[in-house]
C-alpha cells in the first residue's frame, strides 16, 4: 500500500498528469506538489498522486558518493 513508484510524466492537464514506467501508465494528481513539474520529469507516484519530484542531480551525486565509499580495485 505504501508503495511509491518513480515514474516519468508524459502529459499534464491542469493538476492532472499521466505518468509512465515500463510502458505502464497511471493518472497522477499534481495537487500535493509545490514544485513545478514539466513533461519528462520523474516523480514518485503513490495512490494516484505525485508526492515528490525526483532530483536528477542528487541521484547522480548519491551514486558518485557510493562509488567513493569504496574502491572497486580493492574488491578483486
Amino acid at each position, binding site marked *: *500500500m*505504501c*508503495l*511509491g513508484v*518513480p515514474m*516519468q510524466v508524459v502529459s499534464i492537464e491542469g493538476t492532472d498528469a499521466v505518468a509512465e*514506467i515500463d510502458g505502464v501508465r*497511471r*493518472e497522477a*494528481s499534481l*495537487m*500535493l*506538489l*509545490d514544485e513545478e513539474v514539466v513533461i519528462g520529469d*520523474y516523480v*514518485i507516484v*503513490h*495512490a*494516484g*498522486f505525485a*508526492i*515528490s519530484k*525526483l*532530483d*536528477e542531480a*542528487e*541521484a*547522480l*551525486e*548519491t*551514486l558518485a*558518493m*557510493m*562509488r567513493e*565509499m*569504496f*574502491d*572497486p580495485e*580493492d*574488491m578483486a
Partner: protein
Amino acid sequence: MKYQDEYRDRELVQGLAARLRDLASGYHGTMTFMEVCGTHTMAIYQYGLRGLLPPQVRLISGPGCPVCVTPNSYLDKAIACCRIPGLIVATFGDMLRVPGTTSSLMAERAKGADVRIVYSPLDAVKLAAANPGQKVVFLGVGFETTAPTIAGSILAARQLGLKNFFVLASHKTMPVPMAALASDPELAIDGFICPAHVSTIIGADAYQPLAHDFHRPCVITGFEPADVMQGVAMLAAQVVAAESRVEIQYRRAVKPEGNPRARAILAEVFVPCDAEWRGLGLIPGSGLAIREEFAPFDAERMLALEPENSREPAGCRCGDVLKGKISPFDCPLFASACTPEAPVGACMVSTEGTCAAAYKYGR
C-alpha cells in the same frame, strides 16, 4: 532518469557491504538497526541483504506495514460498513484478505457486499459521483505517505459538492511509535532506517527529536539495495563515532522540510489523535482524525456502524513481530497454520508484511 539499474548494481552493493565490514570491524558488541517501512522489509529479504552484513550489525523489522498495524477493531468497523445495504466500500487491494475478528472484506464480498478495489482514493470519489444514489465509503488506512492523498480526495469531494462520499479513517503517523520503540530496553535499538516515502512528506526534520532527545541515529534511506547498504553504513559510522544525527541517504527524493504543500493539505483535513496499533497498543498522538469541519465526510460520525466485539487472532504473534521482538520464524504458526493463502494474522497478508516477506523470500 530512473537509475534503478545503477542502484541495483551487484558490484556497488558488495562494495558498500565491504565498506560496512570495515567500519564495523573494530566495534565490540552488536548494533541493532530497525527499519520501519514495509518496502524496506521487502527489499532486505528480496535482495538477501542480511547475508551481506558483518556479524556486528543486526537488522530488525518494526511496525512498517500500515495494513499490519491496523487493529482488528478497525477491520470489524469496515466489515460493518459492508453489511449496510446499498453501500459501496472502496479500498486499496491489500486490505481485502486481512482477517477481522470473524470475517474479512473478501468473505463479505463473497456474501454479496459491494466491495471495490481502487488504485487511488480519487477513484473512490469518482465512484461516488457516478453513483449519486449510493453511499461510498473509502477505507483510509496508511501512514503520512497515504494520508495526504486521502485528504486530497476529501477536498476533491467537497469541491464536487458530494454528499455520499465518506472516509473510514485510521491513519497513523510515524515518528511517534519510533520514540516508543527506542525507549523499550528489551529491544535495544541503536538506530533507525527511516522510511523513504513517508519522509518525502514529513521531511528529515521530523526525526530530530529521536536523534537529539533519544540519541538514536536516523538515516532516511531509499529502497534499492545500494540505498539500503549505504544507509546501514551511514548508521554504523554514526554508532562507531558515538554520534546521533539525522542524515538523508535518499537525497534524490527527500528534503529536510519534506513536502510543505502535502503537509498543509494534511493539516487542513486531519488533526492528531491517539491511535491503537496492533501489537503496540494505544500510542498518544500517533494517529490522524478527520477535523470537525469535514465531519460530513467522516464515516464514523455519519454512519451508524455496529461492529462486533473485536478480538485479536489466537496464537498469532504479529504484535511481537511488529515490535521487532521476534522474527516470523519464531512464530509457531509460521508456514504451518499461517500461510499467505490462509493467513492467520495481518503480517502474513499484506505484501509489505514481515511474515509475508519472510515466507516469500526468507526460507
